[in-house]
């Protein structure tokens, strides 16, 4: 019971740290939920340990048929995201790399998959999603281990992606994030 309460506090604190400090008023009512099954707090040792990796989310049910590569130019750190379809409402996919990799072949979904990846290019890609008001599919469970690098005391790339989108006013709808307005 004590361990469970402590774990909830840790997860709640993480959520506050990541998403609340600079979130716009439009996102203030967003409900942030976390999957906690892949993270165990041991009260006797005072240590937290990762369980086996949580299962990735599967392919979303609503797919649209499409067949073209879609390159997106994003300024100084321009990147070409891999996208199978071509509709204006392409869905961007974020998450841990091993989870988003399976989405590369999903019609209507855009995954950043470039050989010379960098954080700057990742930021530019997410900013492009925000500018285009794309919907976003969250491919990985939002566990603490997926969002926070406790060894280095910093967010993971996936955690940073989520933070950018929430800061821009994106709102959760199931496993999706929807643009403001």
């Amino acid at each position, binding site marked *: 019971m004590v361990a469970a309460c402590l774990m909830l506090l840790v997860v709640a604190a993480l959520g506050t740290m990541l998403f609340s400090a600079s979130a716009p008023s439009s996102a203030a009512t967003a409900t942030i939920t976390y999957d906690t099954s892949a993270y165990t707090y041991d009260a006797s040792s005072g240590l937290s340990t990762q369980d086996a990796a949580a299962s990735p989310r599967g392919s979303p049910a609503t797919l649209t048929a499409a067949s073209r590569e879609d390159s997106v130019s994003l300024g100084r750190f321009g990147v070409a995201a891999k996208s199978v379809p071509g509709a204006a409402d392409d869905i961007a996919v974020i998450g*841990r790399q091993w989870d988003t990799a399976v989405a590369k072949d999903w019609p209507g979904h855009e995954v950043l998959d470039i050989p010379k990846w*960098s*954080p*700057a*290019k990742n930021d530019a890609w997410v900013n492009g999603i925000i500018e285009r008001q794309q919907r976003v599919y969250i491919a990985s469970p939002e566990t603490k281990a997926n969002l926070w*690098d406790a*060894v*280095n005391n*910093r967010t993971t*790339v996936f955690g940073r992606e989520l933070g950018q989108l929430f800061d821009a006013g994106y709102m959760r709808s199931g496993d999706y994030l929807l643009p403001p307005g």
Partner: protein
Amino acid sequence: MSVAIMDSIALSVLDPANNEGYGSARLPNGRDEEIATLIRQIHGPSEFAEAKRALSSGHGTVLSAFAERMASFAVRGTSLQSLREGLAAEQLALAVVGDYRDSLPALSLLFRACELLGADPGAEFASVAVQASPPDDQPLLDFLERDEEDRSLTSMGYVEDHDEEGFRFERTW
């Protein structure tokens, strides 16, 4: 090898649950030497493969944190040995981490550390790459193919800074 490189003690040293906050801790500390001792046991592809089999993604996160720290420590102490141990740790980290994006930026620090030490990054990266078999040697070799901007500290989210002890690379996010 008569003794397993990554025995239970080694796995404990690299357990992320035993290393919370290690990346930003005072440099150097005792953990650095413990990890360096493990890394020094890897001399070629067979030891690399043995270590890789024993490690999980979480261990890789700790190895990558060590690599970042050694990049700073190498510059601070003008130590090519620390630089090479950092490179070897990062190569192993990239072979086991689940999401390479959280580890790969450390290569920019190691590359820059080479430059600051007056060493040849191409030679240093290549000399460590041969400790692994393909495709595990590829991340280091691929990094050398990047243009200046793609491998820069700026694009990887770091700056050159100092703490109370001396030179240190710092993450900007």
